[in-house]
């Protein structure tokens, strides 16, 4: 059996008296596309924020297991940038690009944690620093090619169309060399064509060896893309399984359609 790359056990997050997440378990195997779904306000984004260190979880364990190096890390209480260094990167539901920086520069920022030139390197611009800068630019450009934005390389990020901005966010996250990519509603606000291109992109990224955890409301996308689905409602996990299993699960139908389906 394959080893889990992400293992979440009993994760809880309280805001004052409100249990935003209540003892949720979740795991991801290498090369999987896993979806996390649920009605609005179910706590999906809070779950993401706990995983990526933006919130400190109230209880439970988050363990990340690097598939190649075999390093196990408990992520609870780690800073977001450290978690990214460990190999888990994310995108945001409400796009958070650096609007006045160019498309290329946005991706270059993603390379930050994989490079190391510092104050003295910046001032003296020694051969090592120059080589590193060149490498940053080349790698970033290759990533832009992968997400299909290389034609807009010198454009300011804020001038991009909505779909392109979403893809740029994915590209920026890929620049940090993650083995696990968290996508928070990547298809939100996209037209059908853009969604189709996005599905192809996610499949391609997955084939290249990145596992993916995504939050999404577009059920067609979720059902066609995911290997497994986790369903949350009111902060609790109410179901998990393959798309077929989840589709026919009465608890899921109840959560989405309300109590009295027959009435």
């Amino acid at each position, binding site marked *: 059996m394959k080893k889990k790359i992400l293992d979440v056990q009993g994760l809880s997050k309280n805001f004052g008296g409100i249990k935003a997440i209540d003892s949720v378990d979740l795991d991801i195997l290498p090369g999987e596309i896993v979806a996390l779904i649920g009605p609005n306000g179910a706590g999906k984004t809070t779950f993401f924020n706990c995983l990526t260190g*933006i919130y400190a979880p109230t209880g439970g364990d988050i363990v990340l297991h690097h598939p190649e190096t075999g390093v196990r890390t408990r992520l609870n209480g780690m800073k977001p940038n450290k978690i990214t260094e460990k190999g888990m990167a994310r995108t945001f539901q409400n796009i958070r690009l650096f609007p006045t920086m160019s498309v290329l520069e946005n991706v270059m920022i993603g390379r930050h*944690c994989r490079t190391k030139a510092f104050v003295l390197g910046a*001032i003296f611009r020694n051969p090592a620093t120059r080589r590193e800068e060149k490498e940053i630019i080349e790698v970033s450009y290759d990533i832009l090619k992968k997400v299909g934005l290389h034609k807009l390389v010198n454009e300011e990020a804020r001038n991009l169309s909505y779909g392109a901005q979403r893809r740029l966010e994915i590209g920026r996250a890929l620049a940090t060399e993650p083995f696990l990519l968290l996508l928070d509603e990547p298809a939100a606000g996209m037209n059908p064509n853009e969604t189709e291109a996005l599905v192809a992109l996610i499949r391609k990224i997955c084939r290249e060896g990145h596992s993916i955890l995504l939050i999404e409301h577009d059920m067609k996308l979720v059902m066609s893309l995911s290997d497994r689905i986790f369903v949350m409602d009111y902060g609790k996990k109410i179901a998990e399984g393959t798309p077929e299993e989840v589709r026919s699960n009465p608890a899921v139908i109840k959560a989405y359609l309300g109590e009295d389906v027959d009435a």
Partner: protein
Amino acid sequence: MFPVKELKRSLLISVWFAFLTFPIMVIKVDPIERIVSYRWHNMFFIAFGSFVISILAKVYMVRSERRAGRKKVKKDIAEPFIQRILREPRFLYPLSIAALVFAIAFPSVFSTYQTNIMTTALMYVVLGLGLNIVVGVAGLLDLGYVAFYAVGAYSYALLNLHFNLGFWTVLPIGGMLAAFFGVLLGFPVLRLRGDYLAIVTLGFGEIIRLILENWNDFSHGPSGIANIPRPGLFGMEMSFDAGIIYMYYVIVALVVFTIFVVNRLQNSRLGRAWLALREDEIACQAMGIDKTKTKLIAFSLGAFWAGLVGVIFAAKTTFVNPASFTFLESAIILSIVVLGGMGSIVGVIFGALILILMPEYLRALSEYRMLAFGGILVVMMVFKPDGIISNVRRSYQFKKHISTRGAE
């Protein structure tokens, strides 16, 4: 052509200005003769003047709006002339060399008095460039910058007094000490942004000044420390004038050094991280940038320049006391950055020269010079809120040859 509504508005503005300036322009108290005279004609001048100015301002605004509307069609031409020059190396390099030649020739062309003023202005150029790292590039509003300037000045004064250390020895020490204080200030304010950060840094600046003012055993209190030696040149004795000119060249060298370093920092991995931090802190962290480290580096590098200039200030005036390091200084340095153009090196240089030299050359207006100075600041901010020369950041332009090589 001109709507009545606008005339009414201008009239209201003129009445308001007449009312505001009434105490200083109209009432004149002669304490010796014990008489109060009212100069009503002044009120008329003010009212009429502000009426005309407000109408002219309105006309200007309407016109520039119309121009902007027309320009939208041709976007490429909208880039201002100055920015185009700064972007092109073939214009920029000759211009910088010309500026450098002018700076080197300055003392032989102008009088010692002018050179001395220029030295002061150039000190503010370095201060502005230092604060620009913190405020302009990293986007951390710092109102207590003068504290680091004070740290530099007092480190020279005190190290010289107690250990007899020379200028050139203390120069790097002063910079390092200030950078260390930058980290000290940085730690407690890491979580803060915007207004809150501004208030805390303001408090920090005042704390340093109050310590210097009240800790008599350490800093000699309000009376300050006098007889600080000027910088030496291999032990040569220099006349007073030669000393001033020597000081001038020291600061010119420092300005060149600062521009070089700050420019390289801005166009580096670290500079990019600062820009990203200014735009979105959370996204920055999620992309693996260490917020703590990046912010502290910005604070300490900014403080470093203030420390260097502090040492030079102590050596130039040969006297330091806490009165030189009030909040007003911080405000002036911040104005240099904002007026010049946040994040723009050339802008900050112009900002410093204008803000420091203008009050000197406005002496012709004698007692009204500060009023004129304030007026110019207001007008600048209304009509050019981005600063004199807004930032022309060389964003990383992707060049084709790298892509072909990368594909091979």
